């Protein structure tokens, strides 16, 4: 049992998550080529904040919404925080709830897990892809951070350090069904502790499961169905996260889906290449200044009152990051609502 992350942090305040949500929103808008967005159903894990539910209802007019909530103990609290009466909360593990739902309309399903990839994640992928209607979107987010409970003392003793790492990989393998080769993981190229290497492993497992389920399902349908990946996000609001997902269709969608032009959105990805949502640390004043001259090249941004070039005030790297995602960049401010 994992502690639900809603107790730790308000999702709305995680900048990368916030950006991701807006990017998803922009992608979902394009689904209107396929069907009225109000005909879609949204299934997610609303937690107590229901941020995604509020956003997708407000912006897309989706009415049919189901939030799956595993924390049965705080039932009254979740019910109380429901932003709209049309959000239905199903209490239980996604493993148990998803197989029982009816899948008779198009869905947008976002399984935004707190935890890491495990057997039950694969079970959910299988359930959803075995059932959902053509034209539906399916995506999931998982934590791809490797937590090492190694103390500094262990690090001083290389033998002990390696032994502990191996034990840890062993556990990961057991929990996730991953087959990380222990003898190879210490080589720099394969070292899963390095950067996003563990995420790549997880992607691999997820994509294999997606392929398997689609293949199984194709044994039962005359019209072969396809999964087209749209999302492959990496972001880090304190823990490395991976979001992966796409659209499910059959040949009747062959002409409609290209009209959606998902590829025009620079953050979509149909490959193993992830889009990293990299958020700069900027003050409100800096954001305002950068926004003002957003259409200009960085070196053409006017100097400020003290006659300093902007990149001598704000690190160039942060300016570049901002330029990439400014349209989705959140501004947080204290407010009494």
């Amino acid at each position: 049992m994992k502690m639900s992350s809603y107790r730790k942090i308000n999702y709305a305040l995680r900048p990368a998550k916030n950006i991701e949500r807006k990017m998803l929103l922009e992608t979902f808008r394009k689904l209107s080529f396929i069907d009225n967005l109000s005909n879609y159903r949204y299934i997610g894990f609303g937690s107590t904040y229901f941020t995604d539910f509020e956003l997708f209802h407000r912006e897309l007019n989706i009415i049919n919404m189901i939030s799956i909530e595993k924390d049965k103990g705080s039932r009254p609290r979740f019910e109380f925080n429901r932003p709209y009466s049309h959000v239905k909360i199903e209490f239980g593990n996604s493993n148990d709830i998803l197989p029982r739902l009816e899948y008779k309309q198009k869905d947008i399903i976002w399984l935004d897990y707190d935890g890491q990839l495990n057997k039950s994640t694969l079970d959910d992928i299988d359930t959803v892809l075995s059932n959902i209607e053509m034209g539906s979107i399916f995506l999931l987010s998982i934590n791809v951070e490797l937590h090492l409970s190694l103390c500094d003392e262990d690090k001083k003793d290389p033998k002990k350090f390696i032994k502990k790492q191996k034990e840890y990989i062993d556990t990961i393998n057991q929990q996730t069904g991953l087959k990380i080769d222990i003898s190879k993981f210490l080589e720099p190229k394969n070292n899963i502790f390095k950067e996003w290497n563990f995420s790549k492993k997880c992607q691999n497992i997820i994509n294999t499961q997606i392929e398997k389920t689609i293949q199984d399902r194709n044994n039962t349908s005359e019209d072969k169905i396809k999964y087209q990946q749209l999302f492959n996000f990496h972001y880090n609001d304190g823990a490395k996260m991976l979001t992966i997902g796409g659209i499910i269709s059959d040949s009747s969608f062959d002409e409609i889906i290209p009209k959606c032009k998902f590829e025009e959105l620079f953050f979509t990805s149909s490959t193993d290449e992830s889009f990293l949502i990299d958020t700069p640390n900027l003050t409100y004043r800096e954001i305002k200044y950068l926004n003002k001259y957003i259409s200009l090249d960085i070196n053409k941004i006017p100097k400020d009152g003290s006659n300093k070039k902007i990149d001598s005030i704000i690190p160039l790297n942060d300016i570049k990051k901002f330029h990439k995602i400014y349209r989705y960049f959140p501004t947080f401010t204290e407010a009494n609502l």
Partner: protein
Amino acid sequence: MTKETIKAEPTKELFVKMMIRDIPLDRAILDLIDNSIDGAHKLRDDENFDGLFTKLTIEKDKFIIEDNCGGISRDILLNQAFMFGKPTNYESTNHSIGRFGIGMKRAIFKIGNSFNLETININSKSNMDINIKEWLKDNKWEFTTNIEDISTLEQDTKTIITITNLHPNISDEFNLEYFLTKLKNDLAFTYSLILNKNFNIFINGEHIRRKEFEIINDANLMPEIINFTFPLEERDEDKLINIKIIAGVSKERDLKQGGWYIFCNDRLILEADKSNITGWDNNELPKYHPDFAYFRGYVFFDSKNAELLPWTTTKTGLNSDSSVYKATSFEMKKALKKVISFLRERAKQESSFKKEKIDNNPLTKLIEEDSIEKNIIEFKNNNDQSFNYIVDNPKNIENIPNGGTISYWKSNEDLNKLKDYLNLSTNKDIGEYTFDYFLELVNENE
């Protein structure tokens, strides 16, 4: 360079000594019964087998199987029955269960060294007496039979195969009470649906009673029912397979009986299966487990053309690579997941109930007390429906006090050490135990 001929013909020994190794004795006997039932199918299109029977006599020194299912016609006897494998132009029976053209010979060879076959068909009557050891000495692939043309009524037709000069190991088996008891039990399971169509099987005079297969079907607890045909685009009745899946729960939480039951043309080929052939214990689905022992799943493959069905030659297993089974197992898995989800919830509820965290266990009551079972035969014409259950006031049953969960990582070495020390089996148990232990210490010191 010259062209020479290489010998590639089979030997009689291959069939007499080798082929019989692939099949257990009881299954070989079932093959003979399958032939009787195929005879019954030929006689009765309506599948009411009232008055038709197979009688087995199984003794230390002889084996006799007798039926009144139409006898063997002159043409089939002379040109087909004793061929090894079915000739390409063989006459097939609709909904047949004898399929590969080896069953009868294999069973005879398996059991003994001599046999007599007497058969009376409406147009002919014949009798043959064969000593297999003698037959082996001869290179010709032939038997000799006495045959005469007659004219008789269908109800007077019969076939009797008497096997004597039994192999010593077979004779020993036949002498065991256990063997007969097990065989009777197997027949009751395997032919349950056929016995239900009034076919009769006797062993040493004892009439075999069919095993009843049941599943809860109640307004408050409905099994999943899925019907489809395969291949998907095929519309010709002679070329397609009808598939029906029924998945749900039984009133009995029976570890042995839980699982999938698979039938081909009403003959049971897989009994209470809990292996990954039927979807358990793979990436997406859990291992079979006592909590799931209420689960019952029934799958019926039915086709006029038995060759299309996904069974193996011994009819004791599924050909899980066949495309019809792949399509079916996908639907089975979806249904199984729904039932598993329900059974998990029941188990959680039951455990909370036992720990007195909640004062009611409506799901267990629903299964064990408030619902009724129906025989699977009654589902023959049912349309698709979704697994579904209704309990009163499910929202009122949760009464867990507010609290949180803790999670942390520990090495396997340490975990296993504590597991051994505390004699606990799961990480969760260790966590709860150690927390409670510490809490108790703190409480004592307060």
